[in-house]
Structures are given as structure tokens and as C-alpha cells.
């Protein structure tokens, strides 16, 4: 079943963002793990890249809602089908929530949201320490949850590609159509 695939633009976005999101998660946990001078360049990548992910994720959500997705294989058991749908919803939600939380928590701290030397974002919340504490915790915890969901997602993708060989892997694989035929 070398059936329907995601459009080339959807695949391009998926893989470009997969790289960016993984980079963000590693940068995030790396930059809070040390007091070394490496932290500052990491922080200054983390903020603009996070906002870029927000923009791309919204674009991608729009594309997904208009273009849809190729159907899952008919013989896929119901629990796996459900897990696939739920995990994709969670992935979309986290791609959008994480950068918004980052932006919101810095706003609630009253900390300038500097994306680059000349570019600052306006705050999206008033300064509020209690709110900051909640948002900061959420940004950290959901960051770890995001990584766990991605691991599960990667495991599932490899399971489709290597074990079930049912065309789900091919639908998103970063290779041109002819390579699959």
C-alpha cells in the first residue's frame, strides 16, 4: 500500500519542525543545567527559535485543517488508531502551547522578551508573580512531557516503518514520492 502521502509542503514542514523542536528541547534543558557562559548563546537561540516554531505551527495547523491527512491503513487496530489521533492532537497542542507559555511567563515576570538585538516582543500578560510561577512550572513540565510524547511518536513511526510496514511511515518520510515506488 504505497498509498496517499502528506503533501510535499506538509512533509517539509514536519521535518523542518521536527529538527527545530528537538533542538529546542535539548537547548532548553541544556541552558538551565549549568552556570557556564554557554547558557547565554543558548538562551538567545531558544527565544527566537521558539517563536518561529509558533508561527510555523499555526501555518501547519491551517494546512492540516485544509488539506487533511492520508487515511490510516484500514487494518490498523482501533486502539492504535485512537493513540495516533490523540498523540497528533497533543503534538499540535504542545507546538503551540510551549512558545506561548514561554512568551507569557516572561511577560508575567516583567522581563524584556528580546528575540534579537533589535527585536523585542510586547508582553502578552501584565506583571504578576503568582502567574509567572505557574507558567514557569508549566513550561518546564510540559517541556519534559513534549519530549516523552515525541519519543513515543518516534517509536510508533519506526514501528510502522520497520515492523508493520503499512505505509504510515512512507506517508511522512522525508523522501520524494518516486523513492517509495
Amino acid at each position: 500500500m504505497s498509498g496517499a502521502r502528506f503533501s510535499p509542503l506538509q512533509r517539509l514542514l514536519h521535518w523542518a519542525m521536527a529538527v527545530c523542536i528537538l533542538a529546542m528541547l535539548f537547548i532548553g534543558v541544556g541552558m538551565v543545567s549549568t552556570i557556564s557562559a554557554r547558557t547565554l548563546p543558548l538562551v538567545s537561540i531558544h527565544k527566537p527559535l521558539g517563536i518561529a516554531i509558533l508561527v510555523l505551527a499555526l501555518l501547519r495547523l491551517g494546512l492540516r485543517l485544509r488539506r487533511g491527512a492520508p487515511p490510516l491503513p484500514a487494518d490498523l487496530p482501533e486502539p492504535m488508531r485512537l493513540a495516533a489521533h490523540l498523540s497528533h492532537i497533543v503534538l499540535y497542542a504542545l507546538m503551540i502551547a510551549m512558545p506561548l507559555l514561554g512568551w507569557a511567563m516572561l511577560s508575567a515576570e516583567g522581563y524584556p522578551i528580546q528575540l534579537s538585538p533589535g527585536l523585542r516582543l510586547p508582553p502578552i500578560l501584565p506583571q504578576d508573580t503568582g502567574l509567572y510561577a505557574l507558567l514557569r512550572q508549566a513550561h518546564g513540565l510540559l517541556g519534559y512531557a513534549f519530549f516523552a510524547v515525541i519519543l513515543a511518536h518516534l517509536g510508533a513511526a519506526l514501528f510502522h516503518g520497520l515492523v508493520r510496514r503499512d505505509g504510515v511511515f512512507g506517508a511522512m518520510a522525508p523522501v520524494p514520492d518516486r523513492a517509495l515506488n
Partner: protein
Amino acid sequence: MPPSPAQRFPLGSLIVIAAVLGGSAAAFAYTAGWLSPERLSRERVLAGLSPPGGPAPGRRRNHVRGICFTGSFEANGAGAALSRARVLAAGSYPVIGRFNLSGADLAEPDAKARVRGLSLRIAAPDGSEWRTAMITAPVFPVATPEAFYALLQASASREPGAMAGFAAAHPEIAAFGAWARSAPWTGSYAEERYNGLNAFIFTDASGGEHVVRWSMRPEAQPVPVPPEQLAGRAPDFLDEEVKARLAAGPLRWTMEVMVAEPGDPVADPSKAWPEGRRRIDVGTLTVQAIQAEPDGPCRDINYDPTVLPEGMRVSADPFPAARSSAYALSYERRAAEAAQYPRTAAGGRP
């Protein structure tokens, strides 16, 4: 790809999947420092700062005692020769500041803090900010953030000779020690000179770069007071003194920027730069009103020294990055504990 019903148990594929997932998780754990307890994390630094009874909940993990003020910074425009930052163009900019004392023990009386601090947040109309936290010492005790952690450990150690051993391994501490022993004490925050100590890079309008440090020179004449005499005053005499002094009129400091020359120790705040370096007075800080910390505007500010306007940035000095990282965790913790530091507590002292 035809669907291939699993004819044999796909052991090889499952091993590949397990290896990919396990490898990814291990790389993540390594990056987060979970596999490297020897990494100098900010958690360890805060633990090193903590007094024996634990930190005061809801408050700063260092320089815990302090009082807020509001005022303004009048830039005279001379700083524009060094940096194109908006806050150095001639004009008046609002300030939220904090007078403070080094140390993390809330119960220590004011007379025991050898090092006093001044923190400023200067806001420009374009939304940029300049945050800085300065101290009265003319040099920092140690040359690197790692050495600062070692110093915290040595001074908390009960082992005889821990401090002597530290001083032998870190001879740079002698300059700070000489200041601590010989510099006169004063009875007022207003009579102190405060030094930024860390070096930053200023970029001027034509792109020229200058490595600088800055200090605040008091308008008030320092009056030396022997420390034994200070010990007899009220535990919070500095707060009371500055309030009383302000009632008689605003307090002022001149901000002085010193420019390094090639070869100066820009990455090492334990070393003063040679005499005769160019010094430019860039403006005047005026303190107009004092507020107790629990309800004051400085309470929820993180005086992170890497919050800088365009035209200023960090240099080869490793301290601002280390401070930014440690201050962020201190802020995160005190924010989470805010309920234990009620806003209405008059005075904010136990």
C-alpha cells in the same frame, strides 16, 4: 510496500527501535545534566549560598535584605560616545532600584554586612531596559564563577584551614581581603560608592566597540564610622537612616563609565584596571522615594545583569552569564514561595 504480516518475530527491528529511543533519552538526560552530578548547576550554586537554616522563603537567595526605591537617571549625553543605547542619550529615564546587603541570612543585623549593594532597573521609552546590580567592593573576591562556588563551600566548611587552603589556591582574593580589612565603614547607603565590577561591551553609533565597567559615585560625603559603633545601632539602621536622609531631600550618584585598554583583564572582576583609564561621567541617579520591600516595586524584579539595551552586550567576563542563570532560579523559587512572604507585612523583617 505491501503489508507483510509478521511471519517471524521482528526481533531485529524491535532492537533497532529500542536503541533509537534509548539513545535519544540518554542524550537528553546527558544534556540536562542528569548524568553529570559534577556539572556546576545553578541548583548547586543556590545550595552553596543557602544559610545553615535554609533560605528565607519567598525572598532572594543572596542579598536577601534590602529596600526598594524609585527615582530617575538623567543621562547627560556623554555616554553616547561609547554606546548608542537609548538610556545614554541625553534625557531622563525612570528607575526602580534596591539598596541591599550581601548575604542570605535574613536575621543578620545590618552592621555585619561588609558588602552593600545597589541594584538599578533603568527603563527607556523604546521599551529597552538596563538592569545592573553593583556592590561596594572595588574588586570581586574571585576570578571565576567556579571559584565563587568553591569560596562559598570553603567559607561554610567546618574543617580547620578550609579558608586558608582556599586563599592559597586563589591568591586573587587578597585584593578583596585588603579592601574588607582596611576600607572605612559608613553609616549610610547614601555615602557608598557602588561598582558594577563586571565588564561589558558598549557599541557606539558608528559601530566602534569599547569594553567598559561602571560605578556609581555618591554625592554625599562618606563619614567613616568604626564597625564596633555600627554594631550598637538598630539591626535595620541602614533602612531607617536612608529613609530619614531622603526626607531631607533626594539622594544622588554620578554614574562613571571606565574604558579598558588592550591587555586589561576584562574577563576577571577580581582585578582592577590600571589607574589612568579613561573615565566618562554619563549621568546622574536621583533617588526620590523609598518603599519597604514587601510592597515595593523592586520586590518582583530580577536584577539580571544580562538585561541590557541595544548598544550594550556581555563581554568575555564569565560572570554575567553565571549570574543570569543563578538569579533566574532564585527568582523562580521566590516567585513560587511568594505566599510565604506576604505583601502586607510592615517592614518585612522577622
